[in-house]
């Protein structure tokens, strides 16, 4: 029996909250000025969901995931997606061992706890599909053998909103596999000054600096926290609110294709994660509302007319959240 795992199982609400707070603080040592993004990434960890990070080049997408890996422990892999990347480059393949004269499975970088898929939209659909299958099934099939991935298995995929030439945009069905789509924007001026100071003071070269990040959470503890989040108290009115929000998005003017039931599940999971990351032992409508944009923005498609007029999913979601009645007394 794994004693660390047992200890993790015994983590109380306060301890779990303290751990998550420490995790956020530790990531913030490397990633300056992205508190909201860090919070959403931690929520995804707690909710055991995959994250699609979108932001312009140089805003800290890779650094965020590296810092998270450093603070989390466990095995971390990074795959740079390119147009010539093959599915076996990600999942692994069988090779003939001349010594033993038999086929051996060579596991790919996907066998890890935290996978950073950089610029996922640069790989062809076949490679994307191989990874997305692993994300959904938590296992990889090589030469007919199903190999389970060690939990926790989380994917942080990045893509950048510009330079769409030569990319393979993820189809709606595959986007749905991601629990959250998180936007990373430019930092504030003061935060950028602090970031530049940290990145240049006493540093040679431009490698990503995560040296100040220490491990504060083990993968076993994370699993315990995930279970704790799954057991959080949740009133029926919260479920009702989440369902009403998602259903409203399906019928909302300006939305061509609304989110499916998986979105409702994702919203409730994310709300649980948010409640725990906020230090609450129960889920409130605020948790649902706080996570609604990240959960729904990549699961809906605006009508062509709204897109032409320059509206973003977040604009529509903002209206939707203010119009759908929240469960108050």
């Amino acid at each position, binding site marked *: 029996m794994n004693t660390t795992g047992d200890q993790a199982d015994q983590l109380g609400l306060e301890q779990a909250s303290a751990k998550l707070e420490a995790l956020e603080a530790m990531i913030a040592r490397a990633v300056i000025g992205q508190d909201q993004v860090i919070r959403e990434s931690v929520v995804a960890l707690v909710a055991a969901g995959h994250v699609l990070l979108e932001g312009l080049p140089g805003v800290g997408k890779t650094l965020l995931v590296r810092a998270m890996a450093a603070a989390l422990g466990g095995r971390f892999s990074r795959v740079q997606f390119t147009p010539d990347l093959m599915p076996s480059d990600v999942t692994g393949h069988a090779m003939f061992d001349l010594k033993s004269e038999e086929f051996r499975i060579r596991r790919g970088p996907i066998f890890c706890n935290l996978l950073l898929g950089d610029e996922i939209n640069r790989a062809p659909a076949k490679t994307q599909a191989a990874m997305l299958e692993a994300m959904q099934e938590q296992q990889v099939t090589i030469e007919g053998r199903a190999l389970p991935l060690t939990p926790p298995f989380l994917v942080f995929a990045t893509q950048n909103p510009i330079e769409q030439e030569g990319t393979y945009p993820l189809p709606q069905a595959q986007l749905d596999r991601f629990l959250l789509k998180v936007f990373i924007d430019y930092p504030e001026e003061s935060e950028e000054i602090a970031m530049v100071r940290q990145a240049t003071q006493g540093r040679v070269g431009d490698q990503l600096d995560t040296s100040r990040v220490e491990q504060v959470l083990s993968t076993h503890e994370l699993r315990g926290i995930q279970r704790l989040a799954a057991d959080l108290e949740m009133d029926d009115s919260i479920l009702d609110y989440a369902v009403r929000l998602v259903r409203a998005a399906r019928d909302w003017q300006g939305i061509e294709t609304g989110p499916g039931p998986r979105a409702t599940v994702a919203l409730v999971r994310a709300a649980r994660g948010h409640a725990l990351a906020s230090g609450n032992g*129960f889920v409130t409508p605020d948790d649902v509302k706080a996570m609604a944009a990240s959960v729904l923005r990549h699961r809906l498609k605006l009508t062509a007319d709204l897109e032409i007029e320059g509206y973003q999913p977040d604009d529509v979601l903002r209206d939707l959240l203010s119009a759908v*009645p929240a469960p108050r007394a």
Partner: protein
Amino acid sequence: MELDRATAALRPRDGWEGQDLGFAMARAWLLPLWLLWWLSALPIGVLCLFLTGFRPDLWLLALWWLKPVYEGPLLIWASRALFGERLGWSDLRTLFRAGVPRRLLPYLLWRRIGMRRSFLMPLTLLEGLQGRAARERRRVISNGSGVPFWLTLVCYHFEIILWASLLLGIFFLVPQELPRLDLMAAVTDDASWAYWISAIAYVFAFSMVAPFYVCAGFALYFSRRTELEAWDLELAFKTVRESGPKGARGLSAMLLIVGAGLLTAPGVDAAPMPDPDRAKALIAEVLEDPDFGSVKEVEVWVPIESPDEEEDPVRLPEGVKAVLLMVAGSLKWILLAFAVAGILLLLLRILRDRRRLGWSLRRVRSRSRMAVSESEPMVEASLPNDIAQAVRQRLRDGDRRGALSLLYRASLAHLGRLGVEIPEGATEGDCLRLARRALPRAEVAPFKRVTQAWWGFAYAHRAPSDAGVESLLEAWSQWTAQAREEAA
């Protein structure tokens, strides 16, 4: 006008020939005309640069619109050059004064977009006609010719071709190591340097086409006047007159004509009457001259069908014709009615789509605002008159949830009275944030306590004790009483 000094042959020309003459003139005098164009355009271009606030699109539009200003001096120069007078640097002032008069104003306003500018400008600048006389003159000169229209159209196309060629030339010839010219930005993004290059290339195209356009327009005008005023004949007579003894016969002929004119002139009796027999012989002699007696063969194509048949191919009875005309007239109005109805339908459709698409978000927002205004009275209406008594009654009945819910709703109603607007979609957390934003901290504290208690009860199912609810009620009563006192 000294016709004998004309450097081009004076003879009747049709429109296309006249245009060719203009292009030949432009080729011959290209350099001085091109320099003159830049001399006129450059100061205006610099001025426009400041007036348009360095916006390339507006700058280009201004330069394009002011084209007649730079074309005037070119026209004056070409008109003088045609009669052998080459204006130099010292004549620039005269040139600009003659080329840019106030009469040019119509060409910068309503006549700017006309398609016969280069053909009609000589009327204004060279003849100086105005008002009705100018209108009559334009009518006579124009004579329905379509050549000036085509000239303008072709020149516009040449400008565009030249501009596009310049841009593509820059695009293809600039080495890859240097910044590439973004062709899309050169046409659409007026904030880019590529757009500036595009605008400058367009001005260069103006300058190259302008001499041809002005000269061709002037040559058309010149040809038309030659035709109308028989300048060729005038010059022929002049040449005959000036040719001296060699042209004695011609001179005799001219004298004869003048003499004949005098014969018919009333009141002229001082001149001797010529001998009729001699005059007859002289006339016969003159008519034998090749200048008068030559025979010219001209071949033209004549349609085989008779014009009458073309005009009325089907002979219809008058009654049928009248009916057909009536039907055609009615059909015209029906088509017009359909067109109007179509336009109205189109407008309605645009409005409907606009409402459905573009205004949809605004409608959503207005709907949210309606929800805001409606929610507060609804909360108020659902509350009992004596909140404290109602809460205590529910506590006594063992309905703690009802008591706390009532207290929370009463707090929201009180926030509404304090001016805090609460949208329908606001959660408890949103309400608290709105209250914090609008009220001092001391006033928010009781509401915060109620909210936290409600949170715990509603979502964590942790019921507070009766004493706890009583304490909250006490704090709430003080909060509302204080506000009432302040209001009083």
